[in-house]
């Protein structure tokens, strides 16, 4: 019973995903790119770094990276907390 309901939900979900895929803009032709053009045009003059992706990761969206490093730290804490009795 439960499996059938989940199965129907799964079929709906996949149909949904294919609908989304069909409705997307053509691959390789972004419609708007104002934000990214800003990065490509100004990253070198503003930060002096050649790698635009790194400037986004550590400068323009540096706060995300702080969060990302925090996620890793959290996971380490979680793993060590889970195994705190096992490893001793």
């Amino acid at each position, binding site marked *: 019973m439960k499996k059938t309901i989940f199965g129907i939900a799964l079929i709906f979900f996949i149909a949904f995903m294919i609908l989304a895929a069909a409705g997307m803009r053509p691959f390789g032709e972004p419609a708007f790119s104002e934000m990214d053009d800003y990065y490509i045009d100004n990253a070198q*003059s503003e*930060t002096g*770094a050649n*790698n635009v992706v*790194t400037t986004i990761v550590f400068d323009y969206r540096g706060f995300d*990276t702080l969060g*990302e490093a925090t996620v*890793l730290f959290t996971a380490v804490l979680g793993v060590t907390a889970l195994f705190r009795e*096992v490893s001793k």
Partner: protein
Amino acid sequence: MNEMSRIVRTITTLIYGFIMIYGFYIIVHGHLTPGGGFQGGAIVASAFALLVVTYGNQGSKKFLSEDIFSLIETTGLVLFIAFAFFGLGITFFYNFMANSGGLFGNSAVAGINAGDLNTGGTVTIMNMAVGLEVLAAFGVIILTMSAGSEIISKKKENS
């Protein structure tokens, strides 16, 4: 996990240094070439994983210690957030070192160039901080999970 055969150990001893150097290269050149702190840190951590696999949990305790890893991790994170705090005169995360002429403060030649290591400002420093954090975090995860799996599998054999 137990110690593996002599062949594997010899090969590991030969190559793990190179893997680490390659990882640190990726970390330090993160602002110039593809890569960065996360990628390089993961490469260095793969060297640790290789050591753990080759020498087993007991054997690898000689070179790898969880305490030192967690110390490095804290150092990396505090360094990272400290350089974010130093920008607080203007805004949090402000890149105050870029184009200042000081450490990592050269301005880049506009357009395509050969790359200068002394550029990038806080981007470069944060790359290194994150690199340290990631390699230590992965190191802790590898050590903890392999030690945990060993104890769990031992328990199963006994019961």
